[in-house]
């Protein structure tokens, strides 16, 4: 499901399945997208932050156009204990690889991988990111 911001429109509540993973997309070229994500985070139930939220930073291929400081991204990661993925949507290879990673995460968050819970995976991601 694609949405431009949270909260989701209530008229579609009855049509929506269970949400297993929320990926917040931040376009590194747009400060507006960061603000939008920060505002939407307020509407997420606390239980999602146990491994069911991730941040996807796009547009990292062009350093010239960065509008968002890395420190802001790291702050988000710290504050919400959620992993950050970087990708460049305009390159097919990276796009496909990122999609596969997200799909894998989704499988775990939906409980489809026996023995691995979303929380366990989330803590794996955060400890590896500190290296």
């Amino acid at each position, binding site marked *: *499901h*694609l*949405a*431009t*911001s949270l909260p*989701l429109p209530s008229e579609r509540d009855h049509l929506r399945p269970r949400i297993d993973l929320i990926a917040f997309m931040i376009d590194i070229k*747009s400060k*507006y997208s960061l603000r939008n994500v920060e505002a939407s985070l307020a509407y997420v139930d606390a239980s999602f932050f146990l491994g069911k939220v991730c941040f996807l930073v796009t547009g990292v291929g062009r350093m010239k156009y960065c509008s968002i400081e890395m420190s802001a991204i790291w702050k988000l990661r710290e504050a919400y204990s959620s992993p950050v993925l970087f990708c460049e949507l305009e390159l097919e290879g990276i796009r496909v690889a990122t999609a596969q990673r997200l799909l894998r995460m989704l499988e775990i968050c939906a409980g489809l991988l026996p023995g691995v819970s979303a929380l366990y995976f989330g803590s794996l991601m955060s400890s590896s990111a500190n290296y």
Partner: protein
Amino acid sequence: MDEVVAEYIRRTVLKIPRDEIRTMLQQWGFLSEAQLQTINFCQIKENISQHVVQLCEENAARIKQAAVLDIIYNHIYSNKRLWSVYQMNKTGEETDFFDLTDFKKKFKRRLRSALTNVTINFREYEDNAIWIRIAWGTPYTKPNQYKTSYVVYHSQTPYVFISVSVLKSNLPLLCQALVAASNSHDIREMELRSHSLNSLKDIVFKRYSQNFQSYYPKPLQETNVAPESDLRIIQENKNEKERIKIINSEVFGDGPQPKLEFAQYKLETMFKSDPQMNVLDRKEPFRCLVKFSSPHLLESLKSLAPAGIADAPVSPLLTCIPHKARNYFKIKDKKYVSSISFVSP
């Protein structure tokens, strides 16, 4: 043949992209088909232009013919120049017909009476457009063929498109000559400028697709429109996106927008701040210039709301550009009301 003419023709030919040279020379019609056949258009442009100059020498070209070639070049590559739009007020009697010879005579006479050293050339095109090329000199020097202004006049309309040249001081003179030649009594600048002459024409002749007010609710969209994307992707904010799309097409119309590169807003408004900040409490207008630039300004404004960068409807200050036929604005405070609003002079 005059050296000046030879050099001018050579430089004009050099400006033309190699693939276009043959067609443009044919359009010019000064060199015969037989002569054109002798030119090898596959060699480098330097050599082509030298050959052309030789042939023009044989035909004894004068500045008048060279000027026509220049007009042809500028007609095709009009987007290399910046055009301003002017509007003339006719004297009131409806002249049923437009006498071209009379116009040319009056124009030349008026211009030459003020400045003898000018080269003036005319060329008519099918869409009732009259192109005028003027090369400016000074009272003491001959006309400089590289310092030219171009005027495009559609005789059935009060509009004139002038390509501003480096010699802005000659502009009043040019305007006077146009007024005299067209039997108008006034000419005013419309504050509308662009590199795309056709887009300027589209705007003033109202040839672009305009929005129409609809006072009845739009019929419900068919939900079974051919799906453009994967059915597994569900857009949560589809209603909002639809709303934005409808408002946007109401404001901008559905067709292609005229091509403008700039919009400039000169603010002459008071700075409004927290009284405790104590900034500029001298009650003077805060001078500020806001300039929007883009390769295609109106299309980019049209895509702002769908891209989520601006709220729909987009500010009327931006969307009024084609309707008001201007892209240079002065914004003043509305008196007695504390909000900033748009007042055109």
